[in-house]
C-alpha cells in the first residue's frame, strides 16, 4: 500500500505541475494575452470558433480597455453558468455572448443592463432594423448584435437536375417538388422537419405572419401561439410529414449531419451559418453540388424574410465597470479587420452594415457552393429585409412546449390545431404563474 500511496503522491505532484499555478485570480483565466496590463480589464464569455485573433486585435488597438476572454461553453452550457452566477450574485463575466432568442429572458430578470443608458443608441444606424429590434425592449437596446442567421434554401443542384425539379419560389412549388421526388421513387426526401427544430419552426410560423408575443409595460403580455398563421404553417408541414415527403429526425445530431451531406435530403431551409458547419463534413458525397436560393414564400408578391439564430454581446449586471464593458460589447466586432477574421475563420454572417454592405462581402464567392456569390444572391436581401421578432421572456420554456407540440404532430398523435392549442395553453398558464397579465 505504501507503494500505491507513493505513486498517488507522485501523480498528484505531476498533476499540480501540469496544471501550473491555476488557482485563484481572475487574470489567469484569460484564454488570450493581456497586452496593456494597466488598462481596465473586462471579462468576456463567448464561444465563437477561432475567436482568439479577434480578441487579440481588440487588445492591440485599445490601450485603456483589455478583454479577458473565456470560452465558458457553447449555448446552454454557458447559459447554465451565467444564470447560476447571476442567482449567486457573483461569478458572472462583464460581457456575455447571448443568442438573440434568450435576450428577452435575461432582460426580464434583470441579468443584463440597458445599453441605451450607456450611449449605445449611437450605433443603431450600423445595423438593420430587424437586427437592432431583436436585442431591444421598449426602444432601449440591451445587447449589441454580432452575427445573424438570415434564412435561405440550400439545395443539391445535382439531385434537383437528376429528378427534374425546378427551384421552388413558393411553398406550393416546394410541396410539388417533394411529391415529384416521391413519384420518381427517389430515396431522397425534400427536406427534414425536425422534432427539435424549435427556432426553425418559430421562424417558419413568423414568415406566415405569426407574432406570438407582445410585451407592454412590466407585467402585460400578449400570447398568441395558435393563431391562423401558425396553424396554416404547421398543417402544411404536417401534411408533408404524414405523406412521408419530408423526414422528421432530430437536428444537430451526428445522424442528421450524415444525412445532410449524403443526399438523404434534397434541400435544407437554413440560416447563413449552416454552410460553415456543413463544410466540416464535405467530401462525403463527391457528386454533391450545393447551391442557395431564397427561402420559398407564401405570397411571392409580398416576400417575408426570416432569421434563425444569431448572437449578440450583452453587459451583465455584475460588471464592475459598465462603461468599459459597453465599450467592449460595442467595439469587439466594430472594425473591418475584426470582421474579416470572423467571416474567413469563423464563417459568421455579419450584422454590422459597413462590412455587410461592402463589396468584399457582397462579391465573396464560396467554393462550397461551386463559386456562387451566396451573399449577393440570397442572404443580403434576407438580412436587410428581416423585420425582427419578439421572443418571450421565458423562451426556453416556450421552446420546450413547441418541441412537445411538433413531436406530437410529427408522430401523428395530435392534429396541428390540437397541438397548437395545447402549446398556447401551456405557455399562457406558465406566464400567469409568473405574474403576467395575459391577453390571448
Amino acid at each position, binding site marked *: 500500500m505504501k507503494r500505491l500511496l507513493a505513486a498517488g503522491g507522485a501523480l498528484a505532484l505531476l498533476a499540480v505541475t501540469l496544471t501550473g499555478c491555476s488557482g485563484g485570480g481572475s487574470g489567469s483565466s484569460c484564454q488570450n494575452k493581456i497586452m496593456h496590463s494597466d488598462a481596465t480589464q473586462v471579462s468576456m464569455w463567448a464561444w465563437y*470558433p477561432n475567436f482568439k485573433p479577434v480578441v487579440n486585435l481588440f487588445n492591440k488597438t485599445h490601450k485603456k480597455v483589455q478583454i479577458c476572454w473565456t470560452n465558458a461553453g457553447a449555448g446552454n452550457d454557458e447559459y447554465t453558468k451565467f444564470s447560476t452566477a447571476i442567482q449567486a450574485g457573483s461569478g458572472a463575466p462583464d460581457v456575455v455572448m447571448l443568442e438573440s432568442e434568450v435576450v428577452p429572458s435575461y432582460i426580464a430578470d434583470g441579468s443584463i443592463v440597458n445599453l441605451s443608458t450607456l450611449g449605445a443608441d449611437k450605433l443603431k444606424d450600423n445595423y438593420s432594423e430587424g437586427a437592432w429590434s431583436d436585442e431591444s425592449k421598449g426602444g432601449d437596446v440591451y445587447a449589441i448584435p454580432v452575427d445573424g442567421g438570415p434564412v435561405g434554401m440550400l439545395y443539391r443542384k445535382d439531385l434537383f437536375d437528376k429528378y427534374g425539379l425546378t427551384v421552388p419560389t413558393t411553398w406550393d412549388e416546394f410541396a410539388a417538388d417533394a411529391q415529384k421526388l416521391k413519384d420518381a421513387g427517389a430515396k431522397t426526401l425534400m427536406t427534414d422537419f425536425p422534432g427539435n427544430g424549435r427556432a426553425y419552426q418559430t421562424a417558419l410560423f413568423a414568415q406566415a405572419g405569426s407574432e406570438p408575443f407582445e410585451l407592454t409595460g412590466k407585467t402585460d403580455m400578449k400570447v398568441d401561439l395558435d393563431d391562423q398563421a401558425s396553424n396554416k404553417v404547421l398543417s402544411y408541414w404536417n401534411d408533408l410529414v404524414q405523406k412521408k415527403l419530408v423526414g422528421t429526425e432530430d437536428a444537430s445530431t451526428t445522424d442528421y*449531419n450524415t444525412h445532410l451531406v449524403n443526399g438523404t435530403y434534397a434541400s435544407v431551409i437554413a440560416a447563413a451559418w449552416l454552410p460553415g458547419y456543413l463544410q466540416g463534413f464535405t467530401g462525403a458525397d463527391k457528386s454533391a453540388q450545393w447551391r442557395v436560393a431564397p427561402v420559398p414564400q407564401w405570397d411571392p408578391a409580398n416576400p417575408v424574410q426570416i432569421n434563425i439564430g444569431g448572437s449578440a454581446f450583452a453587459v451583465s449586471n455584475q460588471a464592475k465597470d459598465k462603461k468599459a464593458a459597453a465599450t467592449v460589447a460595442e467595439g469587439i466586432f466594430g472594425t473591418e479587420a475584426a470582421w474579416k477574421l470572423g467571416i474567413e475563420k469563423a464563417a459568421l454572417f455579419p450584422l454590422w452594415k459597413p462590412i455587410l454592405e461592402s463589396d468584399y462581402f457582397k462579391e465573396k464567392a464560396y467554393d462550397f457552393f461551386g463559386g456562387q456569390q451566396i451573399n449577393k444572391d440570397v442572404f443580403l436581401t434576407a438580412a436587410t429585409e428581416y423585420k425582427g421578432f419578439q421572443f418571450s421572456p421565458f423562451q426556453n420554456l416556450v421552446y420546450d412546449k413547441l418541441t412537445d407540440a411538433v413531436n406530437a404532430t410529427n408522430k401523428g398523435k395530435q392534429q396541428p390545431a390540437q397541438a397548437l392549442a395545447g402549446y398556447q395553453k401551456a405557455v399562457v398558464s406558465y406566464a400567469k404563474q409568473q405574474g403576467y397579465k395575459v391577453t390571448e
Partner: protein
Amino acid sequence: MTAADTTADTTIAVTRGAGRGKQTPAGRTGRSAPRRRALAIPHIILAAFIVYFALPFWWLIVASTKSQQSLFDGKTSPLWFASHFDLFANISALFNYSGGLYARWLGNSFLYAIAGGLGATVVSVLAGYGFAQYAFRGRRAFFAIVLGSVMVPATVLVIPLFVMMSAAHLTNTVWAMILPSMLNPFAVYLMKVYSDEAIPAEMIDAARVDGAGELRVFGRVALPLLRPAIVTVLLLSIVGTWNNFFLPLVMFSNPQLFPITVGLGALQSQAQVNTGGQALWNLVITGAFLSIIPLVVSFLTLQRYWQGGLSIGSVK
C-alpha cells in the same frame, strides 16, 4: 445514476473470510468429457457477456482511428478500420486544440481525483474509526444523518454550493472541486462497519493497558488492520471524483480548470453548434477514447487492490 451507486461497495468490506483459494464444485471435478461439456455452457454465456461489455470499447477504438470525413461517409463498417489510419492525426489535432486544452483537462482530472480522493479517504478513515470505537453522545443521530445523506438528489445542492463557494471567492479555483469531493458518506459508513469487524476490542484494550495514548492506538494498532479497506475506499473515492460531472460543470467557467468529463462535454457541444467548419467530432471521439485509458489501465493493474477490499478475512 451517480452517488448512490458507490454505496453498494459497503458490502465489500463486510464480506469476510474469503481468499482461502476455495475449490468450487466445478473446479474440483475431473476432466471427463461430460464434465467438459457441462463447462462449455457457462463459458459460452461468459463469452456472450464479454461481447456485450467489450463491443462498445472496440467501436470506440476503431472510431478514434478515423478522420471526421470517414466517420460520416458510411463507406466503412463502424466496427472496422478505414483504409486510412488517422489515430495519430486525431491525437495531434486533439492536443493542439485551443492551445493544448485537452492535456490540461487530463491533468486537472488527475489533480482533482487524487487530491479529493486522498482527502476523502483520510477524513473517512478517521470518522469511521471514531464511530466504531467510541461511544459518544449524539453518535447515533450523527450516523443516521450520514446514512440519510445518500438520498439527497445532487440537483438540490448545486445552487447553494455555488452561492457559498462564490461568497468565499472559491469558484473558478481548484478548491471548488477538491473540497466538496472530500465529502464521502459512503466511505465513512464503509470504514465504520469495517472497523467494527476488523479491530478486536481485546487488542485495543491491551494497547491501552500498555499505556498507549488514543492516537498511538489508532496509528499503531488500528491503521494496519484497516489497510485493505483503506485501499478500497481510496480507489472508490478517486473514481467517484474522476467521474463527477455536475459539480465541475457549474463551478468552473474557465475551461483551463475543467476536468476531462466537463471538457469533453464542452467539446461535444462545440461540435454541435460549430459554425467555423472545424472538424471536431473526430476529436470528441478520440478524446473519449484517450480519457478512459487511465482508469481502465488502473483497473487492470490494481485489480489486486480492488480485491484487497474483498478478501479481508485472509489478513489475519
